[in-house]
């Protein structure tokens, strides 16, 4: 089998005295869609933020595409990576947020074209042209010059998808991408995500959308209190959960 896209072994993370991740084992293969479920406070979002080093893990090993996150290993020791090296690795991983976090001072096109110019050194014209293309792909060709405050939540999240795609990532992390949306706007975002999955993008999705997980995910992982309770194919985890905790959670959200 090829190198896993994400490999976590006994990952621990604490904030002060509060241990949020207590030994996470997790693997995602390339071109796989992996959904993370679990009650709030179970550590799903924190784990996601650790994958692109927005949060730092305290113990265990975490690697993306065969390389450790945030460290280099040489001579049997871990060396912290410099900021520029971390930034370069982050550039290869897209991320979407619950509250979209579009840059408020920029139009849709500027939001999408900003990072390719700043981080990858693309020319402005080229970046803007491909930004227009990407926005067209998520169905927003008529909202190019709108500021985030002039867009609906669903439109903002689709701009955010285009913004992530503009960096040509090998992996995209979704942190509850539809939780802040009105019910009728959820589908347009899930639709765009399904299209990504069909194109073979590797995706890790923290979500409460069980329907999406059942339909699109290759693996579903259920987390609670900082540990993985169970993990497997969606039919198995969602229909015949092995653990009482999973059953209790699913009975509430279904």
């Amino acid at each position, binding site marked *: 089998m090829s190198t896993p896209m994400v490999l976590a072994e006994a990952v621990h993370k604490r904030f002060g005295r509060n241990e949020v991740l207590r030994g996470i084992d997790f693997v995602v293969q390339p071109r796989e869609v992996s959904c993370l479920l679990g009650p709030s406070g179970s550590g799903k979002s924190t784990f996601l933020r650790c994958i692109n080093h927005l949060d730092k893990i305290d113990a265990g090993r975490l690697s993306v595409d065969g390389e450790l996150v945030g460290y280099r290993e040489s001579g049997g020791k871990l060396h912290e990576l410099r900021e520029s090296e971390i*930034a370069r690795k*982050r550039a290869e991983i897209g*991320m979407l947020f619950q509250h979209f976090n579009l840059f408020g001072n920029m139009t849709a096109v500027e939001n999408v074209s900003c*990072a390719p110019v700043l981080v990858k050194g693309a020319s402005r014209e080229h970046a803007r042209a491909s930004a227009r293309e990407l926005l067209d792909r998520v169905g927003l060709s008529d909202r190019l010059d709108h500021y985030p405050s002039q867009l609906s939540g669903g439109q903002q999240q689709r701009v955010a998808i285009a913004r992530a795609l503009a960096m040509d990532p090998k992996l995209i992390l979704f942190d509850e991408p539809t939780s802040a949306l009105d019910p009728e706007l959820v589908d347009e975002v899930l639709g765009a995500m399904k299209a990504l999955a069909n194109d073979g993008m590797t995706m890790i999705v923290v979500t409460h959308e069980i329907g999406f997980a059942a339909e699109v995910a290759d693996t579903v992982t259920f987390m609670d209190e900082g540990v993985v309770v169970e993990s497997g194919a969606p039919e198995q985890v969602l229909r015949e959960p092995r653990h009482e905790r999973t059953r209790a959670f699913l009975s509430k959200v279904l």
Partner: protein
Amino acid sequence: MSTEQDTAAQGRPEDIRAVPVRHPGRWVAAAIVVVVAVAIVHSIASNPRFEWSVVGHYMFDERIVEGLRVTVELTVIAMAIGIVLGIVLAVMRLSPNPLVSGGSWGYIWFFRGTPVLVQLLFWYNIAALYPKIDVGIPFGPAFIHADANSLITPFTAAILGLGLNEGAYMAEIVRAGIISVPEGQADAARSLGMTRLQTMRRIVLPQAMRVIIPPTGNETISMLKTSSLAYTIAVGELLYAATNIYSQNFKTIQLLIVASIWYIVCTSVLYVGQFYLERYYGRGATRELAQTPLQRVWIGLRSMHRSWS
């Protein structure tokens, strides 16, 4: 449902035309304001001691205009120093390194804790403390030697005093702006591979500007007036020019009026500048841009036209 259809069929109902509530209290208050205003204007116009002709005569006096030029120069340079210093100090203050943030805290503590007039006098007399100023490696060899008295002229003393003091205030304003930008903005920028510096410069600071500009306009207006303190260390700014002239011709009040009029003219110009800066940095934050005064006049005229026709 049927009522809605009925209304649609009959068209929109007529606009409400009700008899407005009377506000006798407001009328009395307005009358008092008018009477007081008229009394003030009348007193100013009829009191011959104002000697408005003298005021008019000195408005564009060469020395006054030169003083005005120095005042504006002092304000612009001191504010420029203050803003740059303020940004540096604010970023330092938010640094995870306790020595860096502590240094910034100490600077702000010191410069906000002492009166700016005292600081001006201090810089003016710096030669008493450091007769010679050397630039070079700390505790090592120096490259440039200078005599403090010739290096620190009254003008540079004023620039240093006003600018360094302003930096402390601007630092707090900039810091407030930076922490007003939601953390998610920095998360998003960094997840796209931007460095800390790029995130600050391209994402956080531009959005912080909306919060930073109004108090900065305030500071600039305040600086324009505070620069008059430099007259105590013999900088030839506006107030100094005015006092110089009235010490010769004893037209004290008239020259103070001349200076005041110029200060008010300058602050009025700054109001306009601030309006357009706020409008520029408001992009994206509000759905509609604020209207410019011209647009407001235009809209007002149109609605008047509509109500007449």
